[in-house]
């Protein structure tokens, strides 16, 4: 991309006296990838907006079944929320260590993030299994269908985030903190923080407002 633009140097700068070669990895234009990934996150945000809208419309259609106040276990949700928030800051620590070029510390914080993410997922799966066991599965009412779709989509995102995280840990182990891995880790950082951001909407709009009388 930028190679094809090479002849169009800005008018003010004098052309270099001798050919200067582009060293891959030193001035790699990462902006393109990060901006593109940001646009992907925004499109993902629209998916969640549609699911939130669906839940907003159907969230009180219980079909004479159980309501949120009957089903939701707020202490469990609070633990889940704090796990995800903690995993957000541990990922931040991994990014800080990455900037200091410390492979071991980066890997350690990535592992902690992954474990916290797994804890979040297992609590969510436990909650889902508990609901389905009680007969409050997605087929019970429109409220539960939209609930499982919204929270399940978020859970799927976290699952793939963990898959990506493990992949990145293997990549960093094999190749170290090369520019490609840094770029990927920064994309994953945006993805992970974005999931935490969506979860703020989920616990407020679904769980806390769901138990209000």
């Amino acid at each position, binding site marked *: 991309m930028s190679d094809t633009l090479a002849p169009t*140097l800005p008018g003010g700068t004098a052309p270099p006296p001798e050919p200067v070669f582009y060293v891959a990895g030193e001035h790699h234009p990462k902006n393109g990838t*990060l*901006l593109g990934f940001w646009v992907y996150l925004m499109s993902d945000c629209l998916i969640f907006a549609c699911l939130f809208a669906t839940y907003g419309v159907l969230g009180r259609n219980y079909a004479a079944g159980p309501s949120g106040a009957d089903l939701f276990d707020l202490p469990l949700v609070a633990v889940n929320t704090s796990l995800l928030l903690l995993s957000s800051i541990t990922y931040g620590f991994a*990014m800080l260590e990455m900037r200091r070029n410390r492979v071991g510390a980066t890997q350690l914080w990535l592992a902690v993030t992954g474990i916290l993410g797994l804890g979040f997922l297992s609590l969510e799966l436990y909650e889902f299994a508990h609901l389905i066991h009680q007969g409050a599965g997605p087929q019970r009412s429109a409220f539960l269908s939209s609930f499982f779709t919204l929270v399940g989509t978020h859970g799927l995102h976290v699952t793939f985030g963990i898959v990506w995280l493990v992949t990145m840990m293997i990549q960093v182990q094999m190749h170290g903190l090369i520019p490609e891995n840094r770029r990927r880790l920064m994309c994953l950082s945006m993805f992970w923080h974005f999931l935490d951001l969506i979860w703020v909407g989920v616990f407020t709009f679904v769980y806390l407002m769901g138990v209000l009388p």
Partner: protein
Amino acid sequence: MSSHMDNLADRGHGDHGHHGHGGGHDHDDDDGAGHGTLKSYFTGFVLAAILTAIPFWLVMDRVFDSSRTTALVILAFAVVQIVVHIVYFLHMDTKSESGWNMLALIFTLVLVVITLSGSIWIMYHLNSNMMPMSTHDMRNMP
């Protein structure tokens, strides 16, 4: 586009060293966007923890009598917390990626607001415009 130009300009002066180009373009540095510090992550974490704890407390201890008040207050807390996440964890500001990040975010927010408020508004009105149905009909629904 201007970031491409910056990179090209950097290539022109490549022998001056990596950080030799003028200030103000932090995001063209070696680690690109997302310059968080330990302090900013901690600030964000503490703020987010407080903004999470208060809504849970409001709902679990039933601080307000009216559900509507509680709902509005916790929604306000959620909006503030989302802003905290965007600023302290995603490191968004008006300058990152020459403003394109912010532009994409604003565009998305407009679409999100239209989707959410539009759907809920229309569907609530749709409910009240439905054919009247007796309790007997409702019981015998498929």
